């Protein structure tokens, strides 16, 4: 049977409450009745001693004693005081039968000096008393008034208290379990709303730093990843064609120009070399894109190698200059660390090449082939790549949309592009556990900062 966890919690709480209450009231009942029995026996003993003193030691003061007893001793229910003389060699068999008590009761009094006996709420207390006339057995008996009145009252009170406490604790347990599971129910309701059509929805995290907000954070993180891979999946064809077009254009252009008239052998060789080069680029990109598509974004199945960022940047520069001969890229080494180990990262060369060439070629494109500064630096944790252009910039209001696939800023109309490069770049940087920060001022320029964690290699 499927039991809701909320009901389960309520029941567990209730059981705990109830067992504590039962234990508590049982303890109270037992200890109170125990105490009252002892107290009653003591009372009976006093009665017995008084009777013996009055009846057996008939001395001068006994008249006052009787008066005192009659005045101050409250008569107990069915109180009876008896005394029997102890004569050696004679048993109390008849007396025992008459009283309805076992003979061992009398024997014990004779032997030990005192004894107690209970039968049907009649209490017997016997003592051995030594008077001037000889030794006596004195027995006081009465019905226990506690048993008659108090104990029933105590039982009633306890039962009422238990019922009241049960009802009260049931309410508390119900409220408590509701209260604890309310955020969970909220999360469930909200998650139900999220489907593949509205993956941008997130759970609101307004509670403070507790386990629930952890859960919500984890959920939102997961949604982030799902959304990213969803988008990439959706746009994969466009992404791929965008990336594949550049080298293809170069190949077609080169072939077109060469075929327009008869050329010398050297020129053909040159052309075929260029075409081969571009075809190789195409091959690399296809592989990288395939990688991206196959591996998703868990960052685990990627093949990560040791690579040096500065070398990678020079490669990127070379590639871009080949595609766009007008570009002016200035690689600034002024903050290059003295220790080259700090520039080594763990990464996939093709993917990072793709990401960096995207950023830098965008910088060239949107600054009309003005100088683009590319700087490298490294702290102990991160390698920084900073790409700075003096181009058209990105309007401040649109900065938050730049990672949306196919988004293009309002001032880019006269530039060719599909709005795919940057989301792809961000995905690649994310795979490498890096960070990409874009800041911009319209018509002043844009700065892109890429932080990649330093690969910790043992030297």
């Amino acid at each position: 049977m499927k039991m809701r966890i909320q009901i389960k919690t309520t029941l567990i709480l209730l059981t705990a409450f109830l067992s504590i209450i039962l234990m508590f009231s049982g303890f109270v009942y037992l200890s109170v009745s125990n105490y009252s029995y002892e107290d009653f026996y003591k009372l009976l003993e006093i009665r017995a001693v008084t009777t013996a003193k009055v009846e057996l030691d008939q001395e001068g003061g006994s008249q006052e004693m009787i008066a005192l007893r009659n005045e101050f001793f409250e008569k107990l229910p069915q109180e009876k005081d008896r005394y029997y003389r102890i004569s050696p060699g004679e048993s109390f068999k008849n007396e025992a039968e008459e009283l309805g008590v076992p003979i061992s009761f009398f024997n014990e009094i004779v032997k030990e000096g005192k004894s107690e006996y209970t039968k049907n709420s009649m209490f017997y207390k016997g003592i051995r008393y030594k008077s001037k006339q000889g030794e006596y057995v004195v027995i006081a008996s009465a019905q226990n008034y506690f048993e008659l009145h108090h104990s029933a009252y105590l039982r009633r009170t306890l039962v009422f208290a238990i019922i009241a406490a049960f009802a009260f604790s049931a309410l508390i347990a119900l409220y408590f379990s509701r209260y604890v599971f309310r955020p969970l129910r909220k999360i469930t309701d909200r998650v139900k709303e999220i489907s593949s059509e509205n993956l941008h929805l997130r759970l609101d995290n307004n509670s403070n730093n507790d386990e629930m907000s952890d859960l919500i954070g984890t959920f939102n993180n997961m949604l982030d990843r799902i959304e990213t891979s969803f988008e990439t999946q959706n746009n994969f064809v466009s992404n791929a064609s965008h990336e594949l077009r550049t080298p293809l254009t170069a190949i077609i252009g080169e072939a077109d120009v060469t075929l327009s008239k008869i050329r010398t052998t050297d020129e053909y060789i040159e052309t075929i070399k260029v075409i081969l080069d571009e075809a190789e680029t195409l091959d690399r990109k296809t592989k990288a894109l395939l990688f991206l598509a196959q591996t998703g974004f868990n960052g685990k199945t990627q093949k990560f190698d040791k690579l040096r960022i500065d070398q990678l940047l020079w490669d990127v520069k070379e590639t871009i200059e080949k595609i766009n001969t007008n570009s002016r890229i200035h690689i600034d080494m002024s903050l290059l660390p003295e220790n080259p180990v700090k520039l080594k990262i763990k990464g996939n060369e093709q993917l990072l090449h793709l990401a960096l060439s995207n950023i830098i070629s965008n910088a060239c494109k949107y600054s009309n082939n003005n100088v683009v500064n590319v700087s490298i630096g490294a702290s102990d944790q991160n390698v920084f790549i900073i790409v700075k252009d003096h181009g058209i910039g990105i309007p401040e209001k649109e900065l938050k949309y730049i990672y949306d696939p196919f988004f293009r800023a309002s001032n880019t109309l006269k530039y060719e592009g599909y709005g795919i490069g940057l989301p792809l770049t961000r995905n690649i940087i994310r795979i490498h556990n890096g960070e990409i920060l874009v800041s911009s001022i319209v018509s002043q320029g844009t700065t892109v900062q890429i932080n990649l964690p330093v690969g910790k290699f043992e030297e």
Partner: protein
Amino acid sequence: MEKTVVIPTDFSIASLNIVKSYVSMQPANARLNIILLHGLHQSDSIRSLLFYSKHRMMEELCSKEFKEACYVLKNKFASQIKTMKSDLFSGFTQSAFNQYTEANNIAEVCLPVLYNPKFKNKNSFDLLPYIKASKLPVEMVGSEVDVPMPEKGKVAELFFNRVSVS
């Protein structure tokens, strides 16, 4: 040749550009101990003094970007910078400042030409009057032009040669 230099800072990346320009002006064999000094009045309530911790105060003032940028500089000038640390000065008098410089064996102070610090903490104060009155040699670096940059507050700010605190 080893010397200790004080550079006033407001814990912005821009103030680290002074360090960059200054160190690149030094000879290759220089061994520098750089103290990034920040003026901060201590609270005079007994409770906050009781729980005062310099470490925590620094954590509050230094941003993650600032620390990263410090490491970038340390890596860049690994052979010239022997130590680089940030410190707080909380004295009220000129002699307190003089004592601080004496105790730390300060040889020089470096200031940007365009000096206009912005403090995040309301207890921060400008060290310039103390520096001027201390008769320590002052090195001025940077230019007087201030251009707006998109990369304000990011580590990227460190990578471009603009020396001013604003």
